Every structure is written in structure tokens, then in C-alpha cells.
């Protein structure tokens, strides 16, 4: 599974690598993927094979971990349309594959889901799930629950009518499609079965959008899915509302920037909670929903923990969607607090945006998020702490009215970034989700864009935008080991036990994702496209450039 388990904890029970011996880590293997786009997501190890999906053109590599030098067993090269490149808002990334029933299943940027025989590399089925002509591309990591493959599409910047689908694992057939906005029927809301914690009524996904604007309202699904077998609920976050001019779409704009809970079998919507009503800052909620059983105020709680782009970390009751704890995990200025009685943010009126508001300055976090949803957190049941990358920069935000033009962005924003307070643009932190506080913080000079991993050896792992792979003490944050992996890290580390019985940690290097746009001077492969350095990260290109690599570290 992309996140190691259904609960999306990114926790590994392996403990051979521990705080005492982690300083002796060293690289044991590396491989160039031959692809330059941002390497988000993570490798997938099944038995003695490691599978790696690249950014567009979405090559799937199968490495034989049982043989010296880990040679390839096969590689699968789908014919992915080049036209999808321009429709991908933020680089041509892919967030990983899932294994089930002898198949490796993953998404292609141009709107297809493919299943490939895990042993032979032969395609088993391929299903068109999304329409590039309508601005849909697919970057998320699918999850298999029972005989359903759960997939969604990006396109919050292209005015899509966001959705999630359940495919049949055996054939790839689309069994259900549930929209994230719009009419109840399209959202798979069934009479008496939808219980959002703070609101009631029907057709909320229509009535919360002025003048039918839900039709191009966005609400994409480009992050991660988690699943609670006991409650039989799958959880995922939806992205921003479109266009960026919030005054063009009066109302709360449900259910964009929200978490939704559905039945995997038929997609029935069971509850939904909106983190950022009437999103006016591009605060997607597509970051991971991590399921953990916590003790809050002495009581055991089936929790769902989510670090939002809006800078707040939320601890919800995953049975009901009610908010138990919501506190900022990074510097933020758009809201004073989250009102636990209503579930709504107490917003700062000075930070409201819209075409009549002019250039609104000093909004924190920026639209890149207090953490990028591309950087999933980890949770250790040993330390009871969450680990996550964070960003510390702000934005000015100026929007204009915009018309919908199919196949082009539905944005209309100008949003330069400025550093947040403290002299660091990012940090890797440990977070106590029961109380909502930072336990320790490792400052990073650049925004921190990597996913997190934590192990039973009490070691947390992440990578940095300037290309360091790092191992830190999960209880204190003390740096135990680091190695320069050649390109900035925007992927997520994994731990696995090799066929030799030893523990390894694998991670991608390969700067990209939003940084392909924001730090275009880290690219060198096109002589006809010179980019000026971004003043926010002026010297980043002196420390890293593009390049896709898979690294394995061991003792």
C-alpha cells in the first residue's frame, strides 16, 4: 500500500535500524529512473520485488531485490499522452502504486488507471477514468479495498467537477462515481445515510454555491486514501474550490477543502467535514487522513488526524467527523482558531480575498500550504507522535474575475510568496495530536516537501528540498545521519525487510512538483526555457537540480 497500511500511518514495525546504530547508515544502492519530473510518492516493496512508478511518462520498474545489484525484472512503458503535461497544474508527478491480487495498480497522468501483472509486467486491464480535455489529470496513489480500486483526479486549477471512483479490481470497470460537490444524487448521498456532523439538509453541494458555480467548482482528489475496516469507511480529502476568485462562487462551496467518508463497496457518502469553507486561499485538503487510536483527556478516541494546507492540524472523531482538537502547526494569519462547537474557523476579516479586495498581503500559510498535501505525515504508536514536513512562508493574493474556458486553467490569481517569521522556510516537526502542540522542531532553510516515515527503532526519516536524506531521533529530533542524494527530495521514504532479512530504507530524489514551477532554474534540460531564480529560494539551484533517483540505505 502507498502508505504502508490502511490507516496511512507510514509506520514501520521494523527495528533493526535504531537510534544507536542509525549514524552508521549508508547508501547500499541507487538507480536513475531516466525521468526528470518531480519524484513524489514512494517505492512499493512486495516480497522480493521493489516497484517504482516514475512521473510522466509513468514508467513502472520492477527490481529484483533477491539478486545482487537489484537488477530489473522488467519495466512497463505505457503510451501516456504528452498532451496531459500542460493540463497538470503542478508538474507531471505520480504519487505511487498499490499491490493487490497479483497486480500492481497505478494511475497514468493522462487519465487512465492500469493494472499490471506483478510477476510478469504484462498489462491486465486499463480503464479511462478521467478526461484531459476537461482539465482532469491523475496523479494520486490508488488504494484497493476489498474488490474496489479507489481513484480520483486532479484539476482544481482547471474547473473540474471533482469526483472519486470505485473500480472493479478484477476488470477495471467503473462501479461507482461519487462527486465531491453538486447534487446529492451525484454525490452518492442516500436518504437517511448521510450524517455530516455540523450541518443538515439536502442538496448542500448545490445550495452552498451561488448561481450553479459548483459545475466548475473543482474539489479534486489528488492525495491519499485511508480506510478503517472496523467502520468500513474510506477517508479522503478534497482540493480547492475554483476559480481562485472566491467572490465568483458565493457560499461555503461544499464539499471542497473537506474530508469525506464513504462506503468503499458502493461509494455511499456517510459524513463530510469542511476544513476551509468558501476557500479563498487555495487551501486544498488533499493531505493524508491518518487513522490512529488516541487518548484524549483520558478517553480513548478513534481519531483521524490531518495536517491541512491552511496551517491547522485537526484531530477528528473518525466515526462522526466531529472536531476534537484543531491547532496551528505552523505560522498562520487567516484564522484565529477553529470553533469546536460549530466546526468553523474564526476567520481574520483582513485576510479575506476576492476580486473586490485588491491585493491582500501577509496571508500565511501561502497557497503552497503549511504543509504540502504531497508530503504525507507519519504516526508512531510507540511515541504517540505524528511527524510531518512543514512550510513557513506567506503570500500576497490578488485575484481577478475569470471566465471558464474548457481545457485551460480556471484560476486568475497572482500570488508572490514571502518568508514567514523565524528565518527558516520549512521544518520537520513532531506533533502531539491529542493536545495539539509541537513537541520538537527541526528547522530547515528551505520549505520541507518530503513525506515522513517513522519506525519501531524510534527513527524518523525524511528528505529535504536541497537534497539531503535525513534520519532523526523520533523522540528528540536529533539528527542521526544525513546523506546528499543528488536532487531535492519531494517523495516519501519507506522501510522494508529485504530477502536477506535486513532492514532497509528507500527514498526518491528528484526535485519537482510545485518546485518545477517555483524553482524553474533547477531545470537544465531545455535550452529554450530559462527561468529566473525565485527570490523566495534564491540559492536553491546552487544546491540541487532535477534528476530522478531511487536510493536504498542500510546498515
Amino acid at each position, binding site marked *: 500500500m502507498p502508505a504502508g497500511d490502511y490507516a496511512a500511518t507510514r509506520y514501520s514495525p521494523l527495528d533493526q535500524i535504531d537510534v544507536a546504530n542509525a549514524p552508521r547508515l549508508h547508501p547500499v544502492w541507487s538507480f536513475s529512473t531516466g525521468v526528470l519530473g518531480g519524484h513524489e510518492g514512494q517505492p512499493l516493496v512486495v516480497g522480493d520485488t521493489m516497484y517504482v512508478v516514475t512521473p510522466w511518462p509513468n514508467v513502472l520498474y520492477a527490481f529484483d531485490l533477491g539478486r545482487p545489484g537489484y537488477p530489473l525484472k522488467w519495466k512497463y512503458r505505457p503510451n501516456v499522452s504528452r498532451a496531459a503535461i500542460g493540463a497538470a497544474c503542478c508538474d507531471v508527478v505520480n504519487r505511487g502504486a498499490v499491490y493487490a491480487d497479483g497486480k500492481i495498480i497505478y494511475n497514468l497522468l493522462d487519465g487512465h488507471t492500469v493494472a499490471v501483472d506483478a510477476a510478469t509486467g504484462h498489462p491486465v486491464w486499463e480503464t479511462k477514468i478521467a478526461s484531459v480535455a476537461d482539465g482532469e489529470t491523475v496523479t494520486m496513489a490508488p488504494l484497493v479495498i476489498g474488490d474496489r480500486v479507489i481513484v480520483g483526479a486532479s484539476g482544481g486549477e482547471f474547473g473540474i467537477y471533482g469526483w472519486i471512483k470505485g473500480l472493479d479490481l478484477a476488470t477495471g470497470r467503473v462501479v461507482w462515481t461519487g462527486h465531491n460537490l453538486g447534487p446529492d444524487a451525484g454525490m452518492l448521498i442516500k436518504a437517511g445515510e448521510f450524517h455530516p456532523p455540523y450541518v443538515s439538509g439536502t442538496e448542500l453541494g448545490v445550495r452552498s454555491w451561488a448561481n450553479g458555480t459548483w459545475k466548475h467548482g473543482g474539489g479534486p482528489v489528488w492525495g491519499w486514501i485511508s480506510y478503517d475496516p472496523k467502520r468500513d469507511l474510506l477517508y479522503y480529502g478534497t482540493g480547492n474550490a475554483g476559480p481562485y476568485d472566491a467572490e465568483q462562487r458565493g457560499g461555503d462551496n461544499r464539499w471542497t477543502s473537506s474530508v469525506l467518508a464513504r462506503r468503499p463497496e458502493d461509494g455511499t457518502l456517510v459524513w463530510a467535514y469542511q476544513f476551509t469553507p468558501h476557500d479563498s486561499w487555495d487551501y486544498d485538503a488533499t493531505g493524508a487522513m491518518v487513522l490512529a487510536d488516541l487518548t484524549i483527556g483520558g478517553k480513548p478516541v478513534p481519531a483521524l488526524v490531518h495536517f491541512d494546507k491552511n496551517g491547522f492540524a485537526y484531530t477528528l472523531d473518525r466515526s462522526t467527523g466531529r472536531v476534537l482538537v484543531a491547532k496551528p502547526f505552523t505560522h498562520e494569519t487567516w484564522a484565529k482558531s477553529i470553533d469546536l462547537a460549530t466546526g468553523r474557523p474564526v476567520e481574520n476579516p483582513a485576510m479575506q480575498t476576492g476580486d473586490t479586495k485588491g491585493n491582500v498581503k501577509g496571508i500565511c500559510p501561502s497557497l503552497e500550504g503549511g504543509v504540502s498535501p504531497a508530503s504525507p505525515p507519519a504516526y508512531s504508536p510507540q511515541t504517540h507522535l505524528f511527524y510531518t514536513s512543514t512550510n513557513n512562508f506567506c503570500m500576497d493574493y490578488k485575484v481577478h474575475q*475569470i471566465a471558464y474556458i474548457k481545457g485551460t486553467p480556471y484560476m486568475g490569481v497572482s500570488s508572490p510568496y514571502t518568508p514567514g517569521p523565524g528565518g527558516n522556510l520549512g521544518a520537520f516537526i513532531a506533533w502531539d495530536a491529542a493536545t495539539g502542540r509541537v513537541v520538537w522542531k527541526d528547522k530547515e532553510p528551505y520549505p520541507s516537501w518530503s513525506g515522513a516515515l517513522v519506525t519501531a527503532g524510534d527513527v524518523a526519516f525524511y528528505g529535504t528540498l536541497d537534497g539531503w536524506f535525513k534520519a532523526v531521533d523520533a523522540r528528540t529530533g536529533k539528527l542521526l545521519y544525513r546523506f546528499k542524494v543528488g536532487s531535492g527530495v519531494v517523495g516519501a521514504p519507506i522501510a522494508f525487510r529485504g530477502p536477506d532479512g535486513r532492514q532497509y530504507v528507500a527514498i526518491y530524489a528528484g526535485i519537482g512538483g510545485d518546485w518545477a514551477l517555483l524553482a524553474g532554474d533547477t531545470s537544465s534540460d531545455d535550452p*529554450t526555457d530559462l527561468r529566473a531564480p525565485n527570490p523566495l529560494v534564491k540559492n536553491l539551484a546552487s544546491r540541487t537540480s532535477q534528476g530522478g533517483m531511487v536510493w536504498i540505505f542500510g546498515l
Partner: protein
Amino acid sequence: MRPQRTLSWRSSAARWAVPALLGLVVAGSRGATPTHAPVIAAPGVANPAHIAAGGRPPPGPVVQNPYRGEPAIAHAGATLFVSMHCSDCHADAAAGAVGPNLGDGRWRYGASDAAVFRSIYYGRPRGMPAFGGLLGAQGVWVLVTYLRSLPPPPDLPTERFTQH
């Protein structure tokens, strides 16, 4: 009045608003409807950077920019660049984002007005949408004129870093 305000977001049909906007941009900037007849490009426009087998470039129709060098048209094109969502892919001032920098004086598909016209009119394979159907030749020439008016930066092939 900022021309994008003429786009009524309440109207669901951008296809009506767009030609209206185009007329407004061009007319407003020149005080009158353009007198130049738009020139339609056809396939076969040569990119001089392409290698011609036998040293013989294939002949193509002569395609000329009717607005070449006209500052008022370039100014209108800057507005169109925003209202047609070009800036959402190529960034403000065409500095490059999803699509390449269009103001660096370097061109993937050739530097001639005709090559730039073709890129916008017919689109390009890596996700540059074809705007010819929406804007017509006239609108595309307005954009070409804008892009060609961007002050060519001193070509800076060397990026130097000052560490702190």
C-alpha cells in the same frame, strides 16, 4: 476598465464573452476596428532552425503578422494574455510556469512570428492548447505581437550564486 471585467462570470458561455472581449481589446486599444485583414496560417511554415534535407527547406505559405511592432496592439495583447488564461500556465509576464518562459528570447519551436503564431493557433504537443478556434487568426496575432514586444532580456546563460 480592466477588460477581464467585461467577462461576465454569471454567463456560463465563455464562448460568447471571448469574441466580445477580443473586439473590445483590439478596438479599445486602437480607437477603431482594425483595418488589417487577418492572415490565416497554413501548415508548412518553416522553422529556420530545422535541418533541411539536401539543404532545401520545404516551401510554405508566406505568413505575416499584420500588427507587427504596433505598441497599442502589444498592449492589448498583454491584457488578452491574462484574460485567455495564458498567464495561468506561463506565469505573469510570460516568465514560465507549466508552459515555458516566453520572454527569454529563446523559442522551442522557432523564433519567427509565424512559428509563434502556429504555437498559439494550433497548439503544441506537450499540452499547449490550440487557441485558433477560440480567438481566430486576428486574436492570435494580437498575442504574437505582445509576446514579440517583451523586452528581450540580455541573454543570461550564466546564473551566478551568492551564498549567505
